[in-house]
């Protein structure tokens, strides 16, 4: 009996001891787990807070990027920046003596980069005919705005002879799809040269009727100049990136502007255009434009004197031409399509002495053209053009080569 009591007591004691020992282990584990849970909860809360902060930052960055556009990516100092502008066009031409065709004539991105308040770089790359020809640099120049009246330009720049070559020839600006005749064969439009230039404008105190203010502007330059074969067409003398005759060409333009109605300009150019023979090419030009409400009338006259070899018995080649262009915007007509339409009429003619380098014979090529067209402005810099050209040769075979041209042009 006593022995049984002792055994039971021992068993109970062992049992309680084991239970107590287990109970202590479980409590420790529970405490440990509880601490881990708390730590995890703290981490989760921290991550949640971080996520909210990230969300807010992303929203803020998105808003900033939308506001700044490209500049948000190309972040630059306050007074500096880079941007791309330019133009592109698509043309459909059906001419009497040629196969009709679509033609992506121009794609010309223009890169502008400004460093500070008075230093600008301009680079225009040009792909013609859908990339059929290699990309060319139309101009790549540094403009240093020295003060209010003088700007220095250096590099390859569009030659400021008249206004069509420098300001009006881009297809989203030109009133008609085709250039006036003398702006192709005498002034070789798309004409850029390497050299230096000074230009600027000064306001003038003047009190004339219909004039709100006036200004005088000037451009003068020294360039490598047009160079090539003696007697060649002027257009074929372009494209020299380096001088090859130790003779720099000089030229300039002086303009008078009576705002808002009248522009007048006088241009000149002179330079040796041959490699070894010292033959000069001299050009003089007049340009004028008149603006009245929705009407614009502009014209340019150019004359060129191109020396050729005295031994051949030929005199200088004389080349002259002019164009007059009228454009009227129908914005006064309150109809949906008419008020975005512009009617254009242009007359141009040229009389060119020509020279055959093989036969040494002098000939002439006289042409004139009537062009009628319209521009429909889908947007300010996006328009549809339609034109019909009545082309005529006044000498030789007197071939007629009328053409109809439709064009979409976008300035961007």
């Amino acid at each position, binding site marked *: 009996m006593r022995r049984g009591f002792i055994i039971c007591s021992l068993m109970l004691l062992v049992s309680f001891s084991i239970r107590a020992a287990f109970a202590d282990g479980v409590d420790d584990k529970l405490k440990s787990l509880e601490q881990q849970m708390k730590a995890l909860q703290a981490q989760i809360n921290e991550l949640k807070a971080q996520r909210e902060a990230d969300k807010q930052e992303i929203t803020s960055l998105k808003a900033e990027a939308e506001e700044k556009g490209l500049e948000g990516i190309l972040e630059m100092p306050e007074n500096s920046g880079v941007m791309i502008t330019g133009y592109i066009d698509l043309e459909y031409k059906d001419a009497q003596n040629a196969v009709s065709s679509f033609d992506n004539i121009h794609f010309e991105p223009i890169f502008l980069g400004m460093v500070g308040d008075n230093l*600008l770089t301009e680079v225009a790359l040009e792909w013609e005919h859908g990339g059929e020809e290699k990309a060319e640099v139309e101009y790549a120049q540094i403009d240093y*705005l020295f003060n209010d009246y003088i700007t220095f330009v250096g590099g390859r720049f569009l030659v400021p002879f008249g206004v069509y070559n420098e300001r009006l020839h881009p297809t*989203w*600006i030109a009133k008609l799809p085709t250039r006036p005749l003398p702006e192709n064969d005498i002034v070789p439009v798309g004409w850029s040269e390497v050299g230096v230039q000074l230009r600027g404008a*000064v306001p003038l105190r003047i009190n004339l009727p219909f004039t709100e203010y006036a*200004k005088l502007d000037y451009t003068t330059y020294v360039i490598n100049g047009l160079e090539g074969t003696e007697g060649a067409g002027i257009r074929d003398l372009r494209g020299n990136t380096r001088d090859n005759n130790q003779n720099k060409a000089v030229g300039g333009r002086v303009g008078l502007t009576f705002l808002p109605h009248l522009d007048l300009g006088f241009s000149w150019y002179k330079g040796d255009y041959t490699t070894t023979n010292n033959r000069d090419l001299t050009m003089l030009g007049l340009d004028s434009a008149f*603006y009245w409400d929705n009407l614009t009338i502009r014209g340019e006259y150019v004359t060129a*004197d191109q020396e050729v070899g005295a031994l051949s018995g030929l005199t200088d080649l004389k080349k002259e031409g002019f164009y007059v262009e009228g454009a009227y915007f129908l914005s006064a007509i309150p109809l949906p399509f008419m008020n975005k339409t512009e009617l254009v009429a242009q007359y141009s003619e040229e009389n060119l002495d020509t020279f055959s380098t093989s036969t040494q014979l002098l000939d002439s090529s006289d042409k004139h053209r009537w062009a009628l067209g319209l521009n429909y402005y889908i947007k300010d810099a996006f328009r549809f053009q339609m034109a019909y050209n009545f082309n005529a040769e006044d000498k030789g075979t007197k071939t007629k080569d009328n053409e109809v041209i439709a064009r979409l042009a976008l300035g961007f």
Partner: protein
Amino acid sequence: MIKKKLIRLMAVGIMLIAPIFVFSPDIVWGLSGSKVFEQNCGKCHLPRQPQERSDKQWKMIMAHMRVRANLTAEESKAVLEYLQSSN
């Protein structure tokens, strides 16, 4: 020959023009920037909408156009202020 003609023509032009102009760098036209914008930019193309570009882009474009169109510094400044305040 042409050179002589050119010199004569320029001399006559300067003689005719000089008396009626006085160079005036501090001229005040009293024209608004929008008017200067319309009168100058509209000569060659339809004026672009101010909203098309940011302030910084207009600054670059106006520097480009000051050179290309031989705008005076005052014209350029007036047009830039108008564009930047209207975009």
